[in-house]
């Protein structure tokens, strides 16, 4: 998760005159011809690489074969979905996905909030800037490198094994132990992105009216009570927003991260929905089934975001959109 979807259109960002510019639609369009020219390549991109592929999801209802294409492949209705629900591998993948997602919401989601609160309380601007520079860094390191580094520290012949084997001879291989896998994935997520995700929470804290702190202090609230009664409520909007977006992604857990480590612990432990789709489709050639799984996942995710958003709005907070 990042600050990503927080961005949304704000029509009031620039005061624009209320009245529509004069002229018929044609004149207005002609006047804007340069703008259309600038828009064209981008529009083309979004249509070709974001919207046309949506149509590719019809493969979910076909016995799709890349040689025959969409037009010649046989239609099978909901057969793929039926097969899918009987597939024990998919059940495993779904279970793993939900468990990993749950772990991340419980452990990785609050981490940046805590760090942001702590950073905010640091007096020295210089120390704060240094810490920020350090903690943002892993966000920019690719998953391949992150895992290579972790392997070097915790893997079979990494640092930890060497340290321990000085006192014995057994090798510890946390990286390839299925029991550790889920904790490990969560720990990696925390290591990589906690710092980066503080940006948005820090910004939220800064926007809290400082007079609230002052009056709370005057009323006798100490540091902790101000944190509880001013800071956290002040972050509520952003907190809720980020949580909605995270909930919308419950079926998405680090695809690259897991794909890279799957071979060390095996599919039973490490298969998630995305890797299932990839393995079945691109690797296994079972296009119809894989597309069906991907489509179902996408639909559930979108529904969840929309539903969560609606729910939050009903409870009186500002939603994501």
């Amino acid at each position, binding site marked *: 998760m990042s600050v990503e979807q927080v961005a*949304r259109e704000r029509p009031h960002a620039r005061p624009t005159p209320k009245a529509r510019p004069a002229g018929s639609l044609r004149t207005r369009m002609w006047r804007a011809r340069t703008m259309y020219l600038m828009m064209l*390549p981008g529009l083309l991109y979004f249509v070709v690489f974001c919207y046309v592929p949506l149509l590719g999801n019809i493969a979910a209802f076909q016995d799709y074969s890349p040689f025959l294409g969409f037009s010649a492949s046989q239609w099978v209705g909901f057969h793929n979905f039926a097969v899918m629900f009987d597939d024990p591998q998919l059940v495993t993948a779904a279970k793993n996905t939900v468990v990993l997602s749950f772990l991340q919401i419980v452990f990785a989601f609050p981490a940046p909030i805590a760090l942001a609160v702590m950073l905010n309380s640091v007096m020295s601007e210089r120390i704060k800037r240094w810490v920020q520079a350090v903690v943002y860094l892993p966000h920019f390191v*690719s998953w391949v490198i992150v895992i290579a580094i972790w392997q070097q520290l915790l893997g079979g012949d990494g640092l930890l094994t060497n340290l321990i084997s000085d006192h014995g001879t057994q090798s510890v291989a946390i990286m390839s132990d299925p029991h550790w896998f889920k904790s490990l994935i969560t720990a990696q997520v925390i290591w990589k992105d906690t710092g980066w995700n503080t940006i948005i929470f820090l910004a939220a804290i800064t926007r809290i009216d400082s007079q609230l702190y002052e009056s709370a202090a005057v009323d006798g609230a100490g540091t902790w009570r101000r944190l509880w009664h001013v800071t956290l409520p002040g972050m509520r909007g952003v907190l809720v927003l980020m949580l909605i977006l995270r909930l919308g992604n419950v079926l998405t857990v680090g695809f690259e991260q897991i794909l890279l480590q799957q071979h060390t612990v095996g599919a039973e432990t490490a298969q998630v929905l995305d890797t299932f789709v990839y393995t079945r489709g691109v690797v296994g050639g079972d296009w119809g089934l894989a597309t069906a799984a991907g489509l179902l996942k996408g639909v559930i995710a979108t529904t969840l975001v929309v539903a969560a958003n609606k729910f939050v709005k009903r409870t009186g907070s500002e939603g994501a959109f």
Partner: protein
Amino acid sequence: MADTTTRPRPHSTAAPTPGNRPRPTRRPSARPVWAERPSRVGTAAKGFVLAVICLAVLYPMVYILAVSLSAQNDLAGDGLLLWPEHWSLQSYRTILEGGLVTRALVVSILVTVVGTALSMALTVLTAYSLTRTREVPGSRFVLWLVLGTMLFSAGIIPNFLMVKQTGLLNSYWALIIPGAINAFNLVVVRNAFMELPAELLDSARIDGAGEWQILWRIVLPLSKAVLAVVSLFYAVALWSDFFSAMIYLNDTTKWPIQLVLRQYVLEGQSMTQLAPNPNRPLPQPQTLQMAVTVVATLPILIVYPFVQRFFTKGILVGAIKG
């Protein structure tokens, strides 16, 4: 960054109206009057926790660097020390003297540079064309199309089939074009453009400047911070990507560095193929692996300090301010 991370101060948001007390002049990092002095223990604990966090981030990275620079595995034997007993650049020499890693580095650099340039050009043009939804008929619809891509995407398989259909398979363009514009980055850039004073652009227009000129001469120079940050985002995404290369390139000679790293470091394929010169003895495989890791990380570490100070500003202009 300072503007968004400063501690809340009394009256820092309120304009000094006659009824208000005059704003006390204070160093930006000074404690507000109403805050109590933190206890020694508390400060020490906080410092300790932050130090541990920083160490947890930095130690692994420095450790990798140290391993890659040591001649034998003497470093690991010494435990947690970060100082190689015998220094050696042998592993770097081995991977950089031509051969697989060198070629992969060249590929990665080219893809990153070309891809970032293309992404920025497309993003800036599209973002600018969407800044005046009131005057440009239909542009609001296009904006919704862009925002829609943040909510749903086609999925792995349809995207793969699309790349296949367009004939990009096994070409470097397959790494660049399918992700050329990121909707989030586009919104960040657009919002930065929207923050510019309208009067400035209008006066340029009255002086006879065309849209291209306004974009190039006024809008872009005034948005440097955001452009720097967004460029870094694109560059990092291109540099870090191994998945597109994995599914779109079946020719191993075309592999970028991340995929090489995956194959030789994570999947443990024999390192002998990495050396172009079969006669010279190979350094320790572990050292070699870590050298590849360092080389694959370096470009980001080089650019990072220059762009880092713009992060908060760049992101927040696009994200939640307002």
